[in-house]
């Protein structure tokens, strides 16, 4: 969407480094890129440029081929050593198309001719950034996740282990030395299985964490890395996760470069956000005026007694969280409660219990189907 409001920068990561000895080109590029919301840094010669690239790790490098000192071609050759994914784009004067062709052969992504055309510049940089993102996700995909590494299945290992253990036992029964060895081995095996269990747990935790961070990335990207979308981003995380785990907030901080304290301020200010895990089903009882005069407090007391939790609490099975809400705008039907996305009027105790138990059984069958899946 072409917006008329300013596009804040794409987070902490530097997008573009411009290496050119001509002041006008260098500064012109920087200003154009920054006005579009990119983070750009500049260097006046090859040596300074390489140093800057090492420190800033940009996604795209705009590079003049003809410079005093280290030439552009040399810089171009050294870039993959710093980060193979960096996208080099060559700036070349009129009549030096040959050198541009040479540069393309050396792995440049594209080239721009002087004098620079702003639209062309932005177009090429944008494509370069996309290419970089594509490379990043490729490399991310290429690395096999730890859970899926090829290995014998756990039952296989167990069977083999038991088999070996059985053989040891038959040996050890007649031999005191061996029996001692065996006990030591057994202890060691137990220790290893414990450690293995811990590793598995950690692997799972890391995989979960990674999934959460990917989710945040996806949401942040959908909102165009805009700082002004913070509340919308948090709303999306909340709706996906049902609460805002700390690591997701930390990741939003890394991605948007908004101070963590500010993120927490927003997360604590609004009713919609929860900084604690919530039950799978959110039960909200409307406390609006219309509901209040139609005995919403009594209705809440009933629900609270049925669920066995007070407003604001979550039950021990993480099944239900009971909350109060300001107003659903269903005032004509007061008193009203909402379970997840469905609204309910006040009903007999039996019906209320039936509603909650159907939610609970939904949860149970959900769990079963999860377990059935390999």
């Amino acid at each position, binding site marked *: *969407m*072409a*917006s*008329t*409001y*300013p596009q804040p920068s794409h987070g902490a990561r530097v997008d573009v480094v411009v290496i050119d000895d001509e002041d006008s080109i260098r500064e012109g590029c920087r200003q154009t890129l920054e006005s579009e919301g990119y983070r750009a840094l500049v260097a006046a010669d090859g040596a300074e440029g390489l140093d800057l690239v090492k420190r800033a790790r940009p996604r795209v490098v705009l590079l003049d081929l003809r410079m005093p000192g280290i030439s552009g071609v040399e810089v171009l050759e050294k870039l993959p050593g710093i980060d193979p994914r960096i996208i080099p784009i060559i700036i070349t004067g009129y009549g030096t198309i040959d050198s541009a062709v040479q540069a393309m052969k050396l792995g440049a992504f594209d080239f721009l001719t002087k004098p620079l055309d702003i639209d062309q510049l932005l177009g090429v940089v944008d494509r370069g950034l996309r290419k970089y993102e594509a490379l990043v996700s490729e490399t991310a995909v290429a690395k096999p996740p730890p859970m899926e590494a090829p290995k014998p299945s756990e039952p296989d290992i167990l069977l083999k282990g038991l088999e070996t253990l059985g053989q040891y036992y038959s040996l050890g029964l007649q031999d005191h030395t061996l029996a001692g060895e065996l006990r030591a081995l057994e202890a060691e095996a137990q220790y290893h299985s414990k450690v293995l269990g811990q590793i598995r747990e950690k692997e799972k935790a890391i995989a979960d964490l990674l999934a959460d961070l990917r989710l945040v990335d996806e949401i942040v990207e959908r909102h165009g890395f*805009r*700082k*002004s*979308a*913070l*509340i*919308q981003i*948090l*709303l999306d995380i909340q709706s996906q996760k049902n609460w805002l785990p700390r690591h997701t907030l930390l990741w939003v901080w890394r991605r948007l470069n*908004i101070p963590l304290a*500010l993120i927490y*301020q*927003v997360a604590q*200010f*609004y*009713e*919609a*956000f929860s900084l604690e895990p919530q039950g799978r089903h959110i039960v909200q009882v409307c*406390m*609006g*005026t*219309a*509901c*209040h*005069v*139609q*005995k919403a*407090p*009594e*209705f809440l*007391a*009933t629900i*609270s*007694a*049925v669920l066995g939790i007070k407003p604001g609490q979550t039950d021990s099975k993480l099944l239900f969280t009971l909350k109060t*809400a*300001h*107003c*659903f*705008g*269903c*005032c*004509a*039907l*007061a008193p*009203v409660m909402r379970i997840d*996305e469905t*609204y*309910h*009027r006040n009903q*007999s*105790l*039996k019906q209320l219990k039936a509603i909650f138990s159907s939610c609970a059984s939904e949860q149970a069958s959900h769990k079963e189907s999860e377990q059935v899946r390999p």
Partner: protein
Amino acid sequence: MTKLSTLAALAELRQQLAAARSAIRQSVAICSSTGCTLNKSNACSQAIASELAEKGLEGEVELRRTGCYGFCERGPVVFIQPQNICYLGVQAKDAAEVVEKTLRKGQVVERLLFKDESGRRYKTLGEIPFYKGQKRVLLQSSALIDPKRIDDYIAIGGYSALTKALFELGPEKVVDWIKRADLRGRGGGGFPAGVKWETTRNAPGDVKYVIVNGDEGDPGAYMDRSLLERNPHSILEGLIIGGYAIGAHQGFVYVRQEYPLAVEYMRLALEQAREYGLVGTDILGSGFDFDVAIHRGAGAFVSGESSALMSAIEGRVGQPRPKYIRTSVSGIWEKPSNLNNVETWANVPLIINNGVDWFRSMGTEGSKGTKVFSLVGKVRNTGLVEVPMGITLREMIFDIGGGVLNGRKFKAVQTGGPSGGFLPESHLDLKVDFDELTQAGSMMGSGGMVVMDEDNCMVDAARFYVNFLAHESCGQCVPCREGLRQMLHILDNIVSGRGQEGNIELLEELCEFIEVASLCALGTSAANPVMSAMKHFRDEFEAHIRFKQCPALSCPDLLHYRIEPDRCPGCQLCRKECPTEAVLGKAKAVHVIDQSKCIKCGNCLRVCPEKFLAVIKVPGAAVGQAASAA
């Protein structure tokens, strides 16, 4: 959908749509708004659809899912045209009868019609007392519009106000019209919209913004939700016209996330308008560019305040700031920003289409046009009503609303939500407009109207608003944060029987202080509910403080439930309905309530049959009763 790049293309499309419509013999409109969805309107609509398919009527009868009719309590509302038949409370099991009798044979299904207490049935929408006294301008033609289809709106003349503004009037005239129409902001304050528009238009700078405030945080009111779910395009059209008149190229629609359906419909409306080129660059070839972004609120009452809402759009915490410079001059990102309420925007296309004089012909001297109210609480017909400004409270509550529920005695009506006040019976002949209500110590607000009967305790009602405001205070300024907290503390004491002499005077002092010293309107108007309750119902406050009694028998700490042994037949109803198993007793034996287990949910009283009336409320706490946690 192809982009409409000229005025003629839109006119041609409208003609095509209207022609396609006239070919349809009959139409069934079923409300799909939140209220009716709760009453299972989805199942009802599916049943009618499959019934139509079975009977082979699909081609002749058009089935439409529409927005709110306002009579949410009796939903699902089904409206059949051209006979104008209005059925209420239609469930899936009624589908076959409706299709067979009404749609095939043209007969009326009597039992689904509205019935008043004398047993009389009313066939058409206009005849029902609830609708008879209304003047439906914003809420008209609900039956013709599916909020998910832009074509429905275009077919009945939608976006013609936009073309009139773009090609006939020009920006200066639009501002002038809104000014002359004397359209006052429907969000609460009643500030003249035209003046606000002019300020933003004349404010220096090229970048300006226009904003729809759909952060309807006022508990007990749902006009904006209903308007958004009924016809989001009319609001969008108003916004585009406003943007054009003011010179803005970016609009925002701020909707509470508590209204998921409204957010979804608005999003869909925006997508469709963009596809038709009614939003975007060079709208209909006029050269005017305008885009809109939707921003969901995250649940904070104070975020509906204009400066707070704007900082929320910037991505910061939605807290108000001191408005030394108005937001219409320095708002979002310090650019001139014009913010109006949903209902105000929805009025704009109507004024442009029908003219200034038409709008001025409705209402009172100081308040023109109509106003949508949510008439709720202890009233027989609850729902959304649209009336001309200047109608009396009595007409609203007793003619349209049908009087107080269950024949109980009227006690008070609360208008204006947490910023408004309570009006007792002596004020029933008050004309409802911005100035009269303010003069009476209440407020128009966004249009919430909660009726209370003799069973409602006014101290508790005042405490309700203070509790709400104390939780919603952003805490930036001391008078509001600490003042409300202290008021809540005192009121908590009074409702639980711990009130002391002097409390009323202390409350009055606090009210005055908050009113004068707070930063934003949340604080400065926070005293209204308490002040008006104390003014009109001082005796109730005194009864709580001096005699530790709640005259309305409503405050749980000052009453207990008891079963009268000589009236209890032992029917077990209340025992089954008690969530804490506090009711003891076998079938056909007298039941008793174990007071130590009772949580005072009142379920036993609610289910005790009228012929027994064995469960009663008794003033004072029961012996051996654990004090409920305050």
